[in-house]
């Protein structure tokens, strides 16, 4: 009898540990990034690090300013959102409200496929189709540029935006729509003036999720953005926060490597901010 209770308690303990595993992982990641990211920042100086415009990690007199990377990530994400969100939004409204079941089933499969394609495949196709096309069309010396990266990111965030928006739109109670239709509004007017506002928190969550995806993507943009630490402009080669880490990590050491950890820490802070925003919108949608 006592023994049974002990066993039950031990099992409870094991499950408690498993339950806390996710929390442990988040702590592990945070602690590692902070511990390994702080030294370089203190050595370089927070201001020089964040707002320095020159990154020359392998020069005889190295400088470690990551403003170019921050700006590239921000511009790149903003560009991807500007292009990807409208396309994803209108597709989601069409699929959740107007499309017949065959079109819907086909497109849902297509969107899942889009979500499942590995990022290196996007990078590969981008490298061989998009980059030469951008070079031809805009008549620039190298098509590997911020613009190409924005297009690839816009495509890569489409599935998140479509799926999450669709879920929100489909959850809108039919009574709202019926009421609007009964007042003489056409279906299309009803969807955009009643359903979309009713689903706005969910759609906002979709956009924030897209921001997170775009800012965190590394491999695909590495293959199409040229990877040069310029202050970003649309048709120039650029380097993102993610690609800055990825491209130098394998051969770096000393302060250079520590600076890469600091970049990762900055990226992580961006992501935590985005997560908090996402959570805010998701909670709002639940209420």
């Amino acid at each position, binding site marked *: 009898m006592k023994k049974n209770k002990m*066993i*039950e308690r031990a*099992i409870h303990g*094991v*499950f*408690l540990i*498993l*339950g806390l*595993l*996710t929390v442990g*992982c988040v702590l*592990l*990641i945070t602690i*590692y990034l902070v511990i*390994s990211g702080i030294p370089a920042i203190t050595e370089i100086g927070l201001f020089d690090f964040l707002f320095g415009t020159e990154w020359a990690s392998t020069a005889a007199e190295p400088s470690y300013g990551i403003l170019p990377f921050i700006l590239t990530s921000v511009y790149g994400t903003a560009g991807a959102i500007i292009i990807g969100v409208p*396309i*994803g939004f*209108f*597709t989601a*409204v069409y699929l959740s409200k107007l499309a017949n079941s065959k079109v819907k089933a*086909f*497109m849902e*499969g*297509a*969107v*899942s*496929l*889009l979500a*499942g*394609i*590995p*990022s*290196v*495949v996007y*990078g*590969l*196709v981008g490298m061989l*189709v998009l980059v030469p096309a951008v070079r031809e069309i805009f008549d620039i010396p190298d098509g590997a540029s911020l613009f190409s990266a924005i297009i690839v990111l816009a*495509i890569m965030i*489409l599935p998140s935006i*479509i799926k999450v928006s669709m879920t929100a739109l489909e959850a809108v109670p039919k009574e709202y729509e019926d009421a609007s239709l009964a007042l003489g509004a*056409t279906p*299309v*007017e009803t969807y*955009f003036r009643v359903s979309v506002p009713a689903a706005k928190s969910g759609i906002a969550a979709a956009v924030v999720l897209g921001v997170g995806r775009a800012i*965190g993507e*590394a*491999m695909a943009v590495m*293959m199409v953005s040229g990877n040069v630490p310029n202050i970003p402009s649309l048709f120039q080669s650029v380097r993102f926060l*993610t690609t800055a*880490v*990825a491209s130098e*990590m*394998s051969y770096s050491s000393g302060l250079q490597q520590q600076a890469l950890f600091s970049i*990762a820490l900055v*990226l992580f802070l961006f992501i*935590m901010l985005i*997560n908090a925003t*996402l*959570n805010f919108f998701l909670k709002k949608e639940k209420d």
Partner: protein
Amino acid sequence: MLSKKRKAYIGGMKAAMYISTGLTATLVIFLVAYVFIKGIPHISWELLSTKPSYISGKIGILPDILNTLYIVIATLIFVIPLGVGAAIYLTEYAKNKRLVGMIEYAAETLSGIPSIIYGLVGMLFFCQFLSFKTSLLSGSLTLVIMNLPTVMRTTQESLKTVPKSYRDGAFGLGAGKWRVIRTVVLPSCVDGVITGCILSIGRILGESAALLFTAGFAHALNGIFEGLTSPGASLTVALYVYAKEQGEFGVAFAIAAILMILTLLINLSATLVSRYFAKKREL
């Protein structure tokens, strides 16, 4: 009669919807077709069954296929018990709402962290701190953390569908909590675990940034135990290296086509599995 203004609004919105949906569809069809057209001609038995040789200058991707397989197996072996256990804790044991909220928020956070950061922390923790070196094992353990929230969530969803009356019936017969979970709750959540596995396999197959610094680039032909302790490139990493660093676009597209086929298969099986279990549940 609708006013001109209303007609224009409706027309405009309709056009925007058709154009967007058409664009998305075209994009997917183009991607699939392009990758297949460029890649399938390069897939040969020789490519699939050999390792790269500097002497003959030929490229084979058998090691990369095996590495990917090993990573998938190792990751699942760890992530399934951990994820299922976490889900059981949340649905069956946890009573403190704040603790549940904290665990769920942590899971949300984990699924939002970019893979490059996982790669970095995996390198610091598994390769260096635990001195597993750059190896498939380090890579797999990194992927375990990445996929933990997925398995946890799908299991949680299916645990929620187990009727309370099953639990009551078992408790009413004098079964202890662990026995109730083992005999009544767990057998009913197989669908969630399988869905979680399929989603995880999809993510593992597509992952590259997290493996770059944890599992490495080698193309050696190994058995599973040898393989786990030595560095090796997965298919995605091999694609990257062949395309970006060696300019071997034929091989890169062949791998891309293989990955595309696998992605299609995984999506298909996910749909079939959920349909199968939905039908079974109706009975």
